[in-house]
């Protein structure tokens, strides 16, 4: 029995776990955006709060993932909750950092002319700064997604959902005939998801960014 025969027999489980993996990553990404983008908006103009937020998000990213998932069992128990929490923490840095960089990269002359014409602070943020920072913010989400797709595999270690379960199954049955196949199926699913996510973000960037900002 080769790998493809094994995959043909196991595809239902692989698909189901892939679906779980996508949902898990999306939960982490959405939570990180809901927390990270407002944090960036609140702090990008003030030196000290901005440094603190970026430093904290940076520390999150340096915690070894296996350790973080494990540490979260104590407060959150097993399953999806610690997995989503950990992924949210990992996604914060790319989301916050890119939002800050994007907002700070807006040409000061554009802001000055907007103020000079009587746009309020809120109007400038909504109508000028966020649309202009949008391509950079999207890039942050794209990087975060790639990061989470990989790290989400660890959630299987805390009984969480996703393709990690195939990998851990394979690892725990090392030496048995199909151990490598199981791990490979998990990895393959993640790689395919990563490629699809990249394409999806490229398309999203294209349709949601003003033609005036495109470099073509």
């Amino acid at each position, binding site marked *: 029995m080769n790998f493809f025969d094994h995959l043909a027999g196991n595809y239902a489980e692989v698909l189901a776990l892939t679906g779980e993996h996508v949902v898990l990553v999306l939960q982490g990404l959405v939570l990180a955006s809901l927390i990270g983008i407002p944090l960036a908006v609140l702090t990008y103009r003030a030196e000290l709060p901005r440094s603190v937020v970026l430093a904290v998000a940076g520390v999150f990213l340096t915690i070894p993932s296996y350790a973080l998932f494990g540490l979260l069992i104590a407060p959150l128990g097993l399953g999806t909750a610690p997995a989503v929490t950990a992924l949210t923490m990992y996604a914060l840095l790319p989301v916050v950092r890119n939002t800050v960089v994007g907002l700070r990269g807006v*040409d000061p*002359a*554009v*802001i*000055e*002319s*907007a*103020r*000079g*014409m*009587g*746009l*309020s602070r809120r*109007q400038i943020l909504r109508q*000028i700064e966020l*649309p*202009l920072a949008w391509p950079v913010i999207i890039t942050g989400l794209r990087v975060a997604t790639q990061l989470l797709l990989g790290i989400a595999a660890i959630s299987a270690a805390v009984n969480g959902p996703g393709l990690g379960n195939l990998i851990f199954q394979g690892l725990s049955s090392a030496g048995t005939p199909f151990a490598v196949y199981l791990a490979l199926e998990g990895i393959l699913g993640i790689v395919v998801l990563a490629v699809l996510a990249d394409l999806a973000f490229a398309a999203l960037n294209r349709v949601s960014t*003003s*033609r*005036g*900002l495109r470099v073509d």
Partner: protein
Amino acid sequence: MTDASATAAPDAMIRLENLTKAYPGQAEPAIGGLSLEIPRGEIVVFVGPSGCGKTTLMKLINRLIEPTSGRIVIDGQDVTEMNPDELRRGIGYAIQQTGLFPHRTVAQNIATVPRLLGWSAEKVSARVDELLTMVGLAPDTYRDRYPRQLSGGQQQRVGVARALAADPEVMLMDEPFGAIDPITREALQNEFLRIQRDIRKTIVFVTHDIDEAVKLGDRIAVFGPGGRIAQYDTPEAVLSDPADDYVAEFIGSGAYVKRLTLTPLSRVAAATDWPTVPSSADREERVAALRSADRDFVLVLDGDRRPVGWLGRDLAPDDDRLTGNGLPLLSSLGPDDTLFDALNAMLASNADVVVVTGEDGRYRGTLGMAAIQELIHTASPAAGAGPERAAGPAPGRSDSPGTDSPGKEVR
């Protein structure tokens, strides 16, 4: 209270009273107790070297910079305490870097303030087309372009159109033609004067270029170090009678040459005694005209009395050059050209006379070197009007004798 408010002119559009801007940690205020009146419908140019406070003072007017103390009165209303966003929606604002919104089309950029003010879509779109036409951009071509698809000069035009969008009475312009090549810049300046002739806004214009100030300003405020206004007067008065050594030094050399640019030929009487001959004249008539002429050349005019060429007295009666239009006319100057252009044309063609035409291109007369010399020493209306150097209204350039200045057209 200061002198300025004591002599308040009834038609001062902007009145700054004892305005001070001090920054914490700085011993000297950027602007210290400054009072100034800006008459309605005039262009007042703030000119001075970098860091002299001219941009700071401009931004105090629409409160992009909040004053530390003092009052700002616009059109009789004290705006020092009003909502700054509402204040700014009523004041046009254009800056050197244009600050166009790169993610919005030209039309959306121009529509910014009208939209904030809640204009209807039809009214906004009609206004956008009107403004694009006014600044010389075909609406159908440019309406839907993005700023990055425009040249620097076109971006500036859109910037000016955007500042004018809601038809504000007051416009603030911070070096709007600064970062542009000299040829485009001159074209934009000329267009700006043409537009201003129609719309008669009260404009505060900031520049560091004294030549631009002289060209555009009805009045010039020369800024010295420390936010001090060294002189506030008409360009003629600043050039012919600088208030102090600082102003004289800032004007630099060539004050008299600069004054040449202030007088358009439409305000100059052209001599009409130059011998002419119609282009329909035959060889004998031409020879006769040359014989009787007291000059070395006779001017040929076509059927519409447009100057077309010269006949020289040294031509033999059988010379072929006696027929047709004669020697080509090297230059003829229209009503919008200045004494400076006339002198330049003389120097360029090694002649001591130039031909002057009217608006329709017809012959008006000639202008000689001696006439220019005489004009520059007698015909400066503000020369010697030193005591009038206060903030009150003084005769602007358009009050000079002769026809109302038609300004300059695009060439």
